[in-house]
């Protein structure tokens, strides 16, 4: 399928669904409080543009900080694991515990410990908790996947552990890390929005909170507008990370070859 058609097909479907939605809601007089028509959602978006954009920016910036923290924390710990079997044996089970415990259940505790006055930090911590594990797990796997013959070759030429790490293990792990970041980007956004909802009561001002607030006020059209913005944000993060992956890998990695063919 050619490129134009690949974009046009889902776009046409989306427009058709929106048109049908608008028509059905008007034709059957569905109350706006149950399901607002797209036109009302657009009006709510335009009417609340400033506050929604401020919320979007808040959610985006907190998500980016959480992603950066997940990246740094995950990679740093993976490097430690790759260098020390002892550290891995000791720490890995706790990383798993952190991963499998539902973050929404820990959120209130973090909120109490860190405090409502540092709400952004609360959000970052919670989002980091669910976003960092894929980075850790994948990067650890990647660092261990270096070609054994190449490791031998490095040793033959007297390479230091540092040289083996930076010149062999890290490039090997890069595709694994980038794949994990795409997963983590989505998870970080989920973490931030979940945490905003848990925090509630106006301390957080991101899109998650806007949805709760609009729901409480029965401003359903505004709820939809905030929801649509969240989707757009999620898609943007996904595409940005896919672009980064392509930029870093397309010259040499097999995954990029398949996409061309």
């Amino acid at each position, binding site marked *: 399928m050619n490129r134009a058609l690949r974009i046009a097909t889902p776009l046409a479907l989306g427009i058709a669904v929106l048109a049908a939605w608008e028509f059905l809601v008007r034709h059957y007089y569905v109350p706006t409080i149950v399901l607002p028509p797209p036109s009302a959602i657009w009006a709510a978006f335009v009417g609340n543009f400033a506050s929604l954009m401020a919320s979007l920016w808040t959610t985006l910036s907190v998500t980016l900080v959480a992603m950066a923290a997940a990246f740094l924390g995950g990679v740093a710990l993976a490097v430690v694991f790759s260098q020390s079997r002892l550290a891995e044996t000791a720490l890995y089970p706790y990383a798993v515990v952190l991963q499998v415990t539902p973050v929404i259940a820990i959120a209130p505790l973090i909120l109490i410990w860190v405090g409502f006055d540092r709400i952004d930090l609360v959000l970052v911590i919670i989002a980091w908790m669910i976003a960092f594990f894929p980075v850790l797990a994948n990067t650890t796997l990647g660092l261990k996947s270096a*070609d054994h*013959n*190449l490791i*031998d*070759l*490095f*040793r*033959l*030429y*007297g*390479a230091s552990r540092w*040289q083996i790490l930076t*010149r*062999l293990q890290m*490039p090997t792990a*890069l595709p694994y890390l980038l794949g994990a970041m795409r997963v983590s980007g989505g998870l970080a956004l989920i973490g931030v929005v979940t945490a905003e909802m848990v925090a509630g009561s106006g301390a957080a001002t991101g899109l998650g909170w806007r949805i709760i607030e609009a729901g409480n006020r029965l401003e359903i059209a505004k709820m939809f507008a905030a929801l649509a913005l969240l989707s757009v944000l999620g898609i943007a993060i996904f595409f940005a990370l896919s672009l980064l992956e392509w930029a870093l890998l397309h*010259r*040499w*990695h*097999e995954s990029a*070859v398949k996409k061309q063919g």
Partner: protein
Amino acid sequence: MAALLTLKGITKRFDGGVEALGAVDLRVEAGEFVSLVGPSGCGKSTALRVVAGLLAPTSGEVTWPEGKPEIGFVFQEPTLMPWADALGNARLPLDLKGVARGEAEARAMRALARVGLHGFERAFPRALSGGMKMRVSIARALAAAPKLLLMDEPFAALDELTRAALNDDLLTLAREDGLTVIFVTHSVYESTYLSDRVVVMTPRPGRVAADIALSPPKLRDAGYRLTPEFAEAAGRVSAALRAAMEAG
């Protein structure tokens, strides 16, 4: 001639209890082209890794009468870094040794040109054919100007024509540099064509079953493969290999 290295009573038993090498004694002269031939799993590769210092023997010792020389290693697979282009791969040994950037680049370029890859310096491994990847691998080994070249079935995965071309190029390069080569293969014809000496090994645990000195002409080409001398030499190697397999 002076011995470049000697193996004295080398054995290797792996952690799982597998005995890869029985007591192996071997002496390799400087400038010699020696092939190790034997059935799969007879410890040829293990012996090569012990010589390279990548594996410690369980007992016995490797001695270097004139000091341990610079060693190049070529694996069965090209074993290239996919994220680096041909030049980046060829200069790896020099980079690891801390050779200055400009000099490393110049030496790697020369090594690539010598294996016939001039103009492919910026190509990534995935864009190269199997034979060309193996040439990069050889260029990488040559870039560090080794005295001893260890090759572990380097051409086993290549088609017949590519293999023959690489055999000839390898002989030329080895002669030009006065290299000592230890070449592991399970091909009787390849070992006969390339070697001054063929060492036949028994099935696991590998020992030296026969040590056959050949006297190939200095300059060999496709015609040599058709001569009675070649057939006779290959026959001797083949017979020794069969005897070794039956004995094991």
